[in-house]
């Protein structure tokens, strides 16, 4: 089981994607799925760094990534601002160029790319994101 703590900075997204790719490859996922998993992990970590930790430079992000049977499970734990996904507006993918909003696209992609995306907030331990993808 891969378990790593990363500085919550965008420069570490590369390493986060590599970690996920390695576990997914060992778990027998296709190259298409590996790309999807990397993208979902990147969007999730980017959101945490940008929003939960907005402006905090010495924060950390704890990530686990492991296979359970035919499922790959990624968790990300942070101690930043709580996140309520129900407050994020669904992006309108049919809107004209001028009306198109980019906000909420990360979460939308995560949900499309993964089979399950779950956010929990605990006053003591912080925020926990769990994402699951089943091997096709």
């Amino acid at each position, binding site marked *: 089981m891969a378990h790593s703590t990363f500085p919550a900075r965008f420069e570490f*997204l*590369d390493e986060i994607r590599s970690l996920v790719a390695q576990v997914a490859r060992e778990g027998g996922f296709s190259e298409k799925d590996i790309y999807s998993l990397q993208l979902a992990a990147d969007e999730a970590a980017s959101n945490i760094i940008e929003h939960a930790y907005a402006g905090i430079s010495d924060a950390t992000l704890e990530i686990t990534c492991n296979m359970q049977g035919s499922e790959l499970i990624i968790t990300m734990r942070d101690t930043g601002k709580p996140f309520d996904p129900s407050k994020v507006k669904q992006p309108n993918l049919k809107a004209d*160029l001028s009306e198109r909003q980019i906000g909420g696209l990360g979460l939308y992609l995560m949900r499309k790319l993964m089979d399950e995306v779950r956010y929990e907030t605990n006053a003591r331990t912080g925020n926990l994101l769990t994402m699951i993808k089943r091997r096709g």
Partner: protein
Amino acid sequence: MEITTQEFKHCDLVKVKGRVDSATAPDFSKALEKANNDGKFKIVVDMSELEYMSSAGFRALLATQRNCKRYNRGELVLVSVPQRIHEALELAGFTELFKTFDDAIEAVGSF
């Protein structure tokens, strides 16, 4: 990520290589903004050697497309979009916002 910009008579060709994510997207945005600031609104983005792009890169493309298309002064088009990146753009509903070409000469010639 590495960016090279080549100026043609009717458009600029911006080639972006490697990976565009939240760490590198600001530099990608800057390269596109620079073209706009120089009065260039017809832009071809060559993705033939692009390995990865997250929504941070999509955001840069969208902002530039808006700026290029304003007053009908131009357009940003994409060339040689790798399959995985195309799939992600499609998932985000972005494919209809950008014309795509299979090769750079054809894209440059379209302006």
